[in-house]
């Protein structure tokens, strides 16, 4: 215990968790919705981080797995009343299969770097158009989950108040963090990092590069699909146009890159910074009275972070405040 607590990062983490657990007591609706946005973004960033940050495979099409998870859970719920937990398994399975197909094709045919990223976009867009024409899930006019009485929380069916959704996503983010941490400290994490740094060298050392990259894709895809399921039940509506869009893929990775790719805290820090920035700019934009200014300022801030801290904010903060130690 003392060994754990002597680590300043552990203190930071436990403090953060404690604050987040009691947060709904003091937070109003607005703050709660922002916290949900942050945690969702952090969770999705962690999922993307497994593939890109740990194993070095650049995916620009993660909206595909978000969409598959959302539609699997949502459509089963709408048509058969299937509990989200079962829908989640279906979504993870479908996403894992999709990831396996894309990964197997891409890695076998040696599609690398930018080309691999474009391949992932192409699959996501392909599936988006497919869902746009698939009547069973509502096609382009969307799929709507019945909104029931929000006075009672039904965690089994994921129908209830914002507070319930808050604890669900908090749990997901905490588990996602713990899972990422354990992956990184296991043998597989070291193998992934070896592949990320130099694939040929890793191959020469006898690491089964293809298999390990496939595992990274499958884990990342399944994790992402759970985030999609959450979006489906939280928003109660699904449109292929938005759930599979390239903008979602970009948004999903933005926080992690800003926060620090390949790190454990990066996705969380990035989600906080970007969401806060977005909210502040919205308020400032409203005050000035020009709508579009928000996105422009967002772009400028993004550019500034890239120029000043291209490695991400977390590695820099970690160094500044002496939070180094152990594996990330």
């Amino acid at each position, binding site marked *: 215990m003392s060994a754990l607590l002597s680590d300043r990062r552990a203190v930071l983490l436990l403090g953060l968790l404690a604050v987040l657990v009691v947060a709904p007591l003091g937070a109003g609706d607005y703050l709660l919705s922002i916290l949900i946005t942050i945690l969702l973004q952090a969770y999705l960033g962690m999922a993307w981080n497994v593939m*890109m940050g740990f194993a070095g495979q*650049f995916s*620009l099409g993660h909206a595909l797995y978000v969409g598959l998870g959302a539609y699997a859970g949502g459509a089963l719920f709408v048509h058969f009343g299937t509990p989200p937990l079962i829908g989640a398994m279906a979504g993870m399975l479908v996403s894992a299969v999709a990831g396996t197909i894309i990964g197997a*094709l*891409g890695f076998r*045919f*040696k*599609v690398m*770097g*930018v*080309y691999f*990223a*474009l*391949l992932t*976009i*192409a*699959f996501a*867009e*392909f599936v988006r*158009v*497919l869902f*746009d*024409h698939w009547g069973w899930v509502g096609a*382009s006019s969307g799929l709507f989950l019945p909104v029931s009485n929000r006075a009672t929380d039904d965690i089994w069916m994921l129908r209830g108040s914002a507070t319930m959704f808050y604890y669900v996503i908090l749990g997901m983010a905490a588990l996602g963090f713990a899972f990422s941490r354990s992956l990184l400290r296991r043998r597989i994490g070291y193998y992934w990092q070896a592949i990320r740094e130099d694939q040929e060298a890793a191959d020469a050392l006898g690491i089964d590069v293809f298999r390990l990259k496939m595992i990274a894709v499958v884990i990342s895809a399944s994790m992402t699909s759970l985030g999609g399921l959450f979006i489906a039940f939280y928003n109660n509506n699904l449109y292929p146009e938005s759930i599979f869009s*390239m*903008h979602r893929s*970009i948004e999903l*990775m*933005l926080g992690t*890159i800003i926060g620090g*790719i390949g790190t454990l805290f990066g996705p969380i820090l990035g989600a906080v910074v970007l969401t806060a920035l977005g909210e502040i700019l919205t308020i400032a934009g409203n005050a000035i009275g*020009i*709508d*579009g*200014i928000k*996105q*422009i300022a*967002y*772009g*400028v801030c*993004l*550019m500034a972070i*890239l*120029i000043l801290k*291209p490695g991400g904010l977390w590695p820099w903060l970690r160094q500044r405040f002496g939070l180094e130690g152990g594996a990330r």
Partner: protein
Amino acid sequence: MDATFFLNVTSGGLLTGLVYGLMALGLSVIFGVMRVVNFAHGDMMVVAMYAAFLLFTKLGIEPVPALPLVAGGLFVFGYLLQRFLINRFLGVTEHIQFLLLLSIAMIITNGLLMVFGPDARNIQLDASFESYSIGPLVLDKVRVIAAITAGGVAALLWAFFRYTTTGTAIRACADNPVGARVVGLDVEKLYAVTFGIGAACVGAAGCLLLLLMDVHPHLSSDYTLLGFIIVILGGLGSLGGALLGGILVGLSEALSGVLIAPSLKSMFSFGLLILVLLLRPHGILGKKP
């Protein structure tokens, strides 16, 4: 469906495809020399379309005569962008480069939204309603003009890279940046010129596309993706490949639009992209790396 109708759709797609090809040419030049993937390409295209729109509505200059102006403007924009911003990011990993260009794209698109609003705009020339008929074939006049001009600009570009000293120097940078520096070339400046040329191609393509289609700010990411599909089909870095890819995409869009369903046409383009990436990642005319 009779043969004449089919012939008309095919030729229309082919002509539009040449304009697409010119747009993709810009992307191909930028990638071929600097290895920078320009994710703001579609945004630059939309900027050019709006510039041509303004020149026509405010000053009465038609898109074809406005082309040198718009292309020149985008050249300056591209030159400055590369010189002061992107050159600093040449050594870094691709996802950082990607985000940089994305932030540029975000600023451009939202700037356009602020100035012009989300509505679609188009222009109407006298020529918009005229057509040429050759036997059973009916071709829109503006489409023919756009395609011929696009072909002309592409030919100019080819001659530039082939016969001028600057063009040769840029090719040297593409082949071997270190060697180019050793023999005393100002690589940074040549990169800036290259990005300028790539931007000018998009500028020209934007003017011509305004003759054929509406413009609104949200088109930008569609055009960026379209550009990628085209250059990868034809082969990144290959000039002829970009034009060929453009024509193929123009044809597939036109044909799938009438044969299957207009809303499915992008699925065909993406399906084609997946196939080419897997089976022939260097494209149809590209060289094997």
